[in-house]
């Protein structure tokens, strides 16, 4: 990933919580989209069963991934398309640049694709002299503002209409308005020329179908269709796990994806692309390339504990209900994939040690799994990552956590397995807590090394009598 700054998580989160504008934007998202998604699942004729089935379909694809990718590549080549397997972001970017150079491309239009964010395609194109225009309205806004997306599906969710109005006034030279339809129309007008004149179109891939040999793209705006129809060259980039075996697997998954992402029955545009246009066709790209990207995914696939995360279809439903994302917003995570999915995926794709704040910051409330269209057990993996940082794991290049922490926990485990010692400790602590500063009967500050706990919250005092003591008294 181009710019990961996961180590700033705590500071950025603090700033985000103080940002009133952001807070109201996030509240809007969570109050409206979150519950709407949940309601949509309930209305499915198959009920929750469909989510379990979808999970199975995705796990099936992972267990047979090599054969499925081979079939996809073969079918696309048969139709005259090109397929490139890229081990890492560098190989993927270089392949894309080879194409833009060969075609002498000056202007590229991009359909929303998190994987192109992941490999840092925009920066590479711009450095190479290709103007890369984001065409999804949210992405366009974010690009105009010189920022990065803060949400997988609604990239500009952190911005209010007033901010967007000022941004358009400054960058597009239109007179200020905060009316969403007028703003949308202004972007439509500006991007139309780009669509009609672009040399090359880039897109992601939602979920390929191995059986028929097609990638698919989903959008509501129609921008991806434009970007993959009008330019002479179409380059699609897909994470290697974004594939299912059989055509009818798309039935369950697309209905779930559209519900999870935007609380709708089906995305406005679903396109199956299996190669360049035929000569006898009037339009459509004459050249089609598919880049299949590993970039750390095979390492995750090889790990029994974490391979489940590769079932993800990037619908962002987990973000819309996560109480942590709902407060700190996407930018605090400092990486492409944010929210609960990001808190698991980013550490696995980058460096678990460096990005440990991400999974330690999540609350383990379980809302993400309940809302996940493919029922991924995110809380389990958040916990597993925490265990890894505590115990260390050479495979993931993590050293065990600090000796002090380890020492404290070993004492604690001794203490709680010995009744007498335990009671004695609490008698002591009950007495000792009297010297700590309190407010409204709660402890304001703990001494080091526990001071972190009371940094942003007060703590309940230890009760004067334990439950067992009270119980005994009532029995007398």
């Amino acid at each position, binding site marked *: 990933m181009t710019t990961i700054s996961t180590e700033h998580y705590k500071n950025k989160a603090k700033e985000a919580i103080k940002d009133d504008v952001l807070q109201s934007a996030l509240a*809007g998202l969570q109050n409206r989209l979150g519950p709407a998604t949940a309601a949509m699942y309930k209305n499915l004729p198959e009920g929750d069963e469909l989510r379990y089935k979808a999970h*199975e379909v995705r*796990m099936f694809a*992972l*267990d*047979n991934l090599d054969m499925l*990718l081979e079939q996809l590549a073969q079918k696309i080549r048969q139709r005259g398309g*090109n*397929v*490139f*397997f890229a*081990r890492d972001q560098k*190989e993927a970017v270089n392949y894309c640049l080879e194409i833009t150079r060969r075609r002498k491309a000056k202007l590229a239009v991009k359909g929303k694709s998190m994987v192109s964010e992941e490999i840092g395609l925009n920066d590479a194109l711009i450095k190479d002299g290709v103007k890369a225009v984001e*065409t*999804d*309205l*949210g992405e366009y806004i974010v690009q105009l503002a010189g920022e990065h997306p803060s949400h997988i599906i*609604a990239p500009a969710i952190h911005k*209010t*209409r007033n901010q967007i109005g000022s941004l358009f006034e400054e960058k597009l030279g239109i007179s200020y308005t905060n009316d*969403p*339809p007028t703003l*949308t*129309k202004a972007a*439509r007008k500006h991007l139309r020329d780009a669509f009609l004149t672009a040399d090359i179109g880039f897109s992601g891939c939602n979920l390929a179908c*191995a*059986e*028929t040999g097609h990638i698919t793209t989903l959008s*509501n*705006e*129609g921008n991806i269709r*434009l970007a993959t*129809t009008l330019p002479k060259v179409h380059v699609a980039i897909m994470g*290697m796990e974004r594939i299912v075996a*059989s*055509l*009818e697997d798309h039935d369950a998954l*697309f*209905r779930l994806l559209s519900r999870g992402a935007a609380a*709708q*029955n*089906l995305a*406005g*545009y*679903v*396109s*199956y*692309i299996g190669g360049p*246009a*035929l*000569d*006898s*066709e*009037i*339009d459509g790209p004459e050249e089609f390339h598919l880049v299949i990207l590993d970039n750390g995914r*095979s390492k995750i*696939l*090889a*790990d*029994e504990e974490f391979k489940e995360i590769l079932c993800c279809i990037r619908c962002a439903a987990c973000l819309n209900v996560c109480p942590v994302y709902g407060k700190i917003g996407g930018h605090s995570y400092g990486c492409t994939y944010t929210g609960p999915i990001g808190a698991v995926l980013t550490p696995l794709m980058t460096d678990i040690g460096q990005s440990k704040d991400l999974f330690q910051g999540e609350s383990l409330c379980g809302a993400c799994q309940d809302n996940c269209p493919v029922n991924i057990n995110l809380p389990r993996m958040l916990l597993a990552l925490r265990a890894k940082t505590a115990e260390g794991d050479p495979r993931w290049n993590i050293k065990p956590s600090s000796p002090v922490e380890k020492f404290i926990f070993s004492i604690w485990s001794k203490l709680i397995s010995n009744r007498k010692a335990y009671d004695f400790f609490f008698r002591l602590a009950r007495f000792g807590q009297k010297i700590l500063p309190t407010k409204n009967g709660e402890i304001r500050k703990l001494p080091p090394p526990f001071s972190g706990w009371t940094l942003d919250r007060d703590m309940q005092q230890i009760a004067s009598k334990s439950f067992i003591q009270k119980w005994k008294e009532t029995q007398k």
Partner: protein
Amino acid sequence: MIEENLNNQDRFLKTVKEAIKASPGGYRKNREELFSRLSQSTIDSRLKKIQNRTRADQLKLLDLLMEQAEPINLRVMPVKNLQSASESIKELILDKNPEWGTVKKVAAWKHPLIDKLSLGDALAKYDIPVYQSELKSTDDLPAGKQMIREQIFESFVGITAADFCIAQTASLVMKSHPNQARAVSLVPSIHVAVIELNQIIENLGEFYFLQKWDPIQKKEGLTNCMTLISGPSKTGDIELIMVHGAHGPCELHLFVITGET
């Protein structure tokens, strides 16, 4: 370059295979068993059920379509015959104004159903040209394509047929075919589609079933580009407020020819 790509592929897929071995999940199959299969009798009976729908069944599907279309702003207009479809489309074109510029031009597919509407004649007296996207065999191909492309860009209404219409999700299905430019349903501000009553099927599951098991569909395949269109273009990217006409068409009108009663 091709050879190099194949080397890449082998190395890449080997890594994937090893990863799968390292964490076996219990769904591993042989190559022959990768894709779902159905018994011939199941296929036959389901195909029969779909193909033997009565007119009353189809009308029920039309009702379902109309119900599902409303919330996504897809306007469905049942019409009795080709003539009244043609009439209604003409009215629509006369009634609406171009989004860009002031001149009214229309782009249409070269397609048997669309041809029968004779819109060119109907609109000639209003000086509204109807461009058909048709490549003549005598044409210089690139130049011919470029000309049609420009005509579509200048048009404010695009008229297409469709391969199927899925009632449950209110989706039009369009496969890529010669002389049916993809841009006609995409670039003009208003998309008008015309289908016949018996093209409506029930849901996505049925659609995929047909693609996979109906001999005719199977032979044709999904083509190089197949699109499902459910409603006009829309976005909620500014404060989640729904706005129609983000980049694609702002309006989508679907005429369903029900046949004389």
